[in-house]
């Protein structure tokens, strides 16, 4: 079996997700955890786009050779791409909020070590 672009994309998506998860669960620094989240999200987005990719087709933008009539024959499924676009935007929002949290938490305790924030427990 030949390794196609599609497969490479899927594998790299999964790889990125694994790296992200490893960072989320393993890094103690809050900023590194947040970065790991963005890596994880990126991996997930790549995976979704790759799964929705149909070999030999073009982007679902009605322009030039792609018309409304032949859209479903020549273009890939637009839905996954639309979803990913939305997910990216939302991911941006979440990341921004997390960073604000990191800032606030640092203001209080002057540390970014997640192990230091265990006052609430049991």
């Amino acid at each position: 079996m030949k390794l196609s672009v599609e497969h490479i994309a899927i594998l790299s998506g999964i790889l990125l997700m694994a790296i992200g998860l490893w960072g989320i669960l393993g890094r103690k620094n809050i900023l590194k955890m947040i970065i790991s989240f963005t890596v994880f999200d990126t991996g997930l987005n790549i995976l979704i786009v790759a799964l929705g990719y149909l070999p030999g087709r073009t982007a679902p933008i009605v322009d030039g050779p792609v018309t409304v009539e032949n859209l479903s024959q020549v273009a890939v499924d637009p839905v996954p791409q639309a979803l990913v676009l939305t997910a990216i935007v939302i991911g941006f929002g979440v990341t921004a909020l997390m960073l604000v949290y990191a800032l606030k938490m640092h203001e209080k305790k002057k540390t970014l070590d997640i192990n230091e924030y265990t006052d609430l427990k049991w």
Partner: protein
Amino acid sequence: MVSPYYILTIGLGLAFLLGLLGKKLSKVNIAVIMLAMISFAAISASWVWQFAFGNAEESLFFSAGFEPPFSIALKLGFQEAIIAFMVNIMGLFSTLFLWKKLHKENDKLAPVLLVLFMGLNMLILTRDLFNIFVFLEITAIALGGLILLDERKHAASAGFKYLLASSLISAVYLLGAVLVYFSTGSLYIDDLILGGPVAGPMAGIAVFLTIIAIVLELKPFPANGWALDVYQGAHPAIAAIISAGVGTAMLFVLHKLMIISGPMMAQMITVAGLLTFLFSNWLGISQRDSNRLLGYSSIGQLGLIMAIIGMQDILGDQFAFIAMGILLSHFFAKAGLFWISGIVGGSKLESFAVLRSRPLLLLMFGIFLFALSAFPPFPSFYAKWDLIFALSDAKQYLFITLILFGSFFEVVYLIRWFGIVVKNTSEEVKEKLPVNITQIIPISVFAAALLFFGYYGQHFMNVPINLNYIPLIAVAALWILDFLPTWVKNTLLIVATLFYGYIILPQLHDFAFIFAIIFLLGAFLTLLFGYSYKGKRPGFYPLVAMMFAGLILLVEAKDLFSFFFAWEIMTAGSYFLILRGKKSQPHAFSYMLFSFGGALLILAGFALAHSVTGSYTFDALTMVGALSPLVFIMLAIGFLTKTAAIGLHIWLPGAHSEAESDVSPMVSGILLKAGVYGLLILFMRMGHQFVLGLDLMVVLSWVAVITSIGGYLLASVQEDMKRLLAYSSVGQLGIILFGLTLMSNLGWLLAIAGVITHFLNKTLLFQAVGGVYSRTHDRTMYRMGGLIHRMPITFIFVLIGIISMSGVPPLVGFAGKWLSFNAVLSKGYYLQGVGMVLAGAIAFLYLFRLIHVPFLGQLKDHLRKVKEASFWILLPQIIILMIIMAFSALPGVLLEPIGSAVGKIFPTGGLTWQDSFLPFGSRTAISEYGYWNGTYVMVITMIIFAVLLGFQMLIQRRNKKVGQFNIVYSAERPSTPETTHAGYHFYAHYQKAVGFLIAPLATNFWNWVSDIVQSIANQIRRIYNGNGQVYLIHLVIYFLICFFIFNGGL
């Protein structure tokens, strides 16, 4: 109908407006958000109205004029309308509650709050899987923002944990939703349903991922540490939104997605939910922080509803009612409690004691706690009844067990909290708790809603409802009239009792009639005592009315549901009454635990019996089959918790002795009989049951013997008068139980006569002792003495009381003794009979002390000015005395009607009655072994007494009277004066010999159980170590375990 897109538009538009013009609008932003929330609520209210009363039909709204998958569909049906309305009501009242904060302190909160509720509305309405993801994230961001913007100490770290968890969960959800699209070509839920069950390997995983993500959002145990921290760290008003608002919306999302899940997923959700319910409540027991406690409770309740959603196929038609009943209780109560926590401001359970300065707030606090505990008349009570019955019909016994244990643990911490708040003596309440109207309105509305839905909800139950609300109206009326002085309320309640008796008694027959007389006459006699109280006694009369309403409804009940309803009303009322005592908090608490545990057994027993026979009346108990011994045991234990059989008695001494002077006779003389009534009904229907060839009735007869010996032994070593009488009740109830277990005409006659004489004697003695206490303010016997000189009338009452109780002729107690020997002989229970004789002998020991120590001997210095008890305390005792005398002289008046009731069940082996030569219609009772005429015995005894008295007066007429101080003291004063008192440690010699019999075995056992339960809880909750990353690992592990179970089909 108004298009739901208006909510989206209004929410987003105004939020942007507030965000952009924040500074310029800061004066009016509260008006803007209020307007928005009102419009949300109004729009959803109009939907509910049109669905409920108009002829609205379920409709779909597509965005931008496309059809799915290219557009987003919002579906608006009745369900959606109701849930959206609930969430919007929560939004409206949260805004009102946060008024001051939004207006003055933090104007940045307003737009975030608006976006949050807009997001929740869309979560409820949308039919698009991806759209659910979008709004999950929007609500998560908005919540994250809300938590952060409120500058509390630990809000930031808690909010961060929440964000971490929710981001991970939404990633799982997103992957699931996208995979659903790839395997089906649509994200539109209704397309997925139309296409049949989603099939194929990828589809299976896709559905699993989407649903497990929502399950994780609902905080399943043990992957829920992040949620607990948020409940604790966030502002209580925000915690209220998370618990009631977000929780409700999330549950609805799960419900919506259930149609694409298979049976296996449903089962997994059920198990996850029930484990969460059980363990959250269990771990909550060790919790001391109020907000975290509410967090545990919230998670538990969400778990239960999640399980109900998983079980909807099992529950069938009743699903919606059960789910809504529990959800509504959780929704209103949890929001209300978090709001009250916001007003109180403290985080310790004890800090809520400041509520005592605000009786109305305290009342609502109680309403919320008891609604959560599933007491009537709240929606959760009805829902839980239906739930247990439905599960029993479906033979899901494991699920029932989990739910019952979870419910019990929940009550442990909720009621303990209530007790601490109402009665904790370590917390002094000095200042009035400051409240403002915008905070009180939401709480009041939610409390009122609970009561409304409690009344309204029962009509949707699966049982024929014929509840009598008249006694409960009296309770409500007395709440309203609570401002009146004591004597007015007392008179009102007495008149109401007598009038109700006049109406109801002719409708009752046999045992119900006899017990109704006890309850009504008991209410009358014990209420007379109340005239001796001055002032207003706030809150006392509604509670008394509540307990007696429960009792009278109990005897009116003709079906299982009415019985259980009355049982719970009575339990709650008596708990509150006992709690009023000065030091009664721990005792009231243990009373509640035993009663509630017993009630759960009764509920389960009823449900099992119903599942076999299909009947909702007491006839359900005439079941046969393998389950019947089990049902018998469950019900018997349930009722025996109320009669305080040995082992289940440890709540009684404290509860009865620490209660107020007029409450003690109520709970001891009267309330205990409710348990006897339950046993009567049970024995009448189920009779002898066998386990491994062993007759359970014989086992119970031994329990009864041990109970009476143990109770009397314990009574004889008490130093406290009321504790002595309390233990005496344990023993007497043992004798009554023994009579019932004989299952013969004479046995039951003995039991019922015992019920009546115990009621009379114990009421008399508790009132006499209450009279002593009212003058001496002391209950310890050896500190008193010689009271015969100061309180001669009370002395006579106590004397008559103990003679009657000890069962010597000529008083009515002898009837019991005579009957018991006859009954034992005719049944052939010789060994038990020996035990009963022994118990009777021990009874003399403690009864003797009651008269000897406080009344005889030297009058104590500090008692020299003591006066006789007041008229209103003596009056009921005089009445009781006359009744005792009448029954003693003419026992036939008492025994013949009982005999005719018993004769309907046991036609043979009863007494026969014969006219005698004596006047006043005196009759002689004839049994197999002999005859007895009370009048005759009385006359003879009187003659002997008079002769002896005359003789003594004759030979003693020259004796010189020795004054109290006509003696010589030695020169030393002992350091422990009580040890030199003859009355102290009176039976030291017996105690040395048989002291091992009264070792606190039962108390030690239950302490051991409670220690184990608590230490397990303490160990388990250490997994919530506060580290956000560890919480994520919990989530991942939970996910993986579910994944392998799902795919491995374990």
